[in-house]
């Protein structure tokens, strides 16, 4: 199921464009573990082998140097890289404290129209089952 490219090999991974709601089918071209291009899926019933400029060139952000690579905590007003354990402990302790002091509805979650179904399902489950609130919404409202 996972098809990561190994060194020296070129692979084409079938997926769906991450931009608008049209959901065009495309292949990511992977060389030596890096995405080097995009090809449209000619068998997809919506885009039938074509893409727009965002579909063709919009993937470049994946390899951008400014991608976040480490959890960060703002210490004395400055972002400091920390371990996952430290970041999650920090968030968990404060969320628990606020819930205890002010109740579950003192928490609000902005979910993501960009993330997968599975991630959004887990996000709302976190808000409802863990935090105990229906304060979960996302930009479909906008």
């Amino acid at each position, binding site marked *: 199921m996972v098809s990561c490219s190994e060194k020296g090999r070129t692979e084409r991974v079938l997926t769906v464009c991450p931009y608008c709601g049209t959901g065009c089918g495309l292949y990511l071209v992977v060389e030596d573990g890096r995405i080097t291009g995009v090809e449209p899926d000619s068998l997809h019933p919506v885009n039938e082998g074509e893409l727009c400029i965002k579909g063709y060139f919009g993937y470049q952000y994946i390899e951008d140097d400014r991608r976040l690579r480490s959890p960060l905590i703002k210490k004395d007003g400055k972002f400091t890289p920390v371990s996952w354990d430290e970041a999650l402990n920090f968030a968990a302790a404060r969320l628990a404290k606020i819930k205890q002091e002010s109740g579950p509805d003192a928490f609000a979650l902005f979910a993501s129209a960009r993330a997968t179904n599975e991630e959004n399902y887990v996000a709302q489950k976190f808000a409802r089952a863990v935090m105990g609130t229906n304060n*979960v919404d996302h930009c479909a409202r906008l």
Partner: protein
Amino acid sequence: MTNSVPEIGQYSDVIFIIGSNTAECHPLIARQVIKAKERGAKLIVADPRLTEMANKADIWLRVPAGYNISLINGLLHIIVKENLYNSDFVQNHAEGFDEVARAVEDYTPAYVEKLTGIPQQDLVEAARFFGRAKNATILYCMGVTQFSYGTGNVVSLSNLAVVTGNMGRPGTGVNPLRGQNNVQGACDMGCLSNVLPGYLAVTDEKNRARFEKEWHVRLPSKPGLRIPEIGDAILNGRVRAAYVFGENPVMSDPDSSHLRHAFEHLDLLVVQDIFLTETARLAHVVLPAACWGEKEGTFTNTERRVQRVRKAVNPPGEARDDWWIFSALAQKMDYGRMNYLHPQEIWDEVRRLVPEKFGGISYDRLEKARGISWPCPAEDHPGTPFLYEGGKFATASGKANLRPVFFDPTRLPEEKVKQFKHALAGKITELPDEEYPFTLTTGRRGYHYHTGTMTRKSWPITQVTPQQLIEINPRDARKLGIEDGDFVKLSTRRGSIAAKAWVTERVPEKTVFTSFHFWEANVNELTINSTDPVACIPEFKVAAAKVEKITPAEFQAILQEKKKKYLVDLEEEVAGQSKSGRREAHV
């Protein structure tokens, strides 16, 4: 969408596009429209701007921003008067036709022309095309929904489709073109404050019980806050902690300076994203996420088509899948029912809990298919490319509910509403006046996407569209002494931005247009947070504005202000702290 995209190219013989800049915002759907036109289909476009689609239309109805209901009621008026409605469909599959027919009586072509400036002959011709079509389809977007009466706009479009019997067949329907890759899916998965996954209302005990059994908790029954309500809830102390993932609200939300101000008052802001966005810069904790191309899962497109997205490369550094982060945090908070190992497990939980919609959509089937449209209740069910087949609607009676809709730009037509059952009404919140004489309307550009977090990091895209432009009509520009490429300051009661003027006939007189792609001049500092009473969608599409010519030096001063405001240098600074390189192993 009620119907699927390929049906447009294949079956529609009249296409009515309203409030959608399809060629720029959904280019591959626009391609299906062109395909239909090549077969001889007629294209009607209603838009204040001369978009590429308007340019290709057989009839372009230049409706002023905000006046959709007058236009649609006008079409219905002609369709009723000229007997172009589908009496069989209306009789057997709809309720409320007489009320709607009575409600549109006043909307004569002459009255609509007086309100909107649309020539009577064009309106009559458009109504005849639509009324006589074999398969007419309606495509709409944010130019219909983003109003304080967005629900009324959508209901009036649904009236038009039902009255003409254009529902429940291929190539027909009422079709919202959804803006984001998985906005449909995020809604389907229950990321709305009033519904659980599968649109099951949180207020219904039976719905909650379904999830309580699987999740082993008692669930809250009161609907939660909606996004436009959160800013005030923070400022009045009701909300103390916010968690934002994969969204950039300080750029994308209306009256964004107000929300930004609210976020600065939070006791805890957690932001989970792929870049240090304008919102992430305000956070107490930032969690790095894997992005598209680095993870497995599914997206659901605007047609309700659930499709597999696949991993091609490893995420950089310590970045992790969003589902992993939520699961790990839940475990830290002693919740034991979120110990997932793979997205497939999560999807199977969704299928188990909402079998009526997703039960038949397995990862195995998605390996072979180019997606499956829900509802798909069983593994041997083919999915549902179009809804309401045979005119059976998802209402208690099984019939479509028609509702009268009224509009008056200046004041709510309340006395009209009282004369009808279940009527809706709208008015524009902020009309132009002496101080703010322009109508500001907003949207996207073809080459960029939303707040620019992703597309501004692609060099071919930034080369084509490097900066913000403010569209202004040549006659207005002349009066203000503005030439194409001059710097202008655009202001509303909420704030000011500055950018270059694009003097163009694309916008009508007294209307200006710009986008929300650029922090340098983010139009959402100017938009108004006035919301629809049903859907709570804000009125992004109309605000009163003024335009002033400024000098290059004045522009530079404003730019420096914005740079400080959005903490622009922080992104590079933080990126410099951590080493580059991708993770070696799989998550």
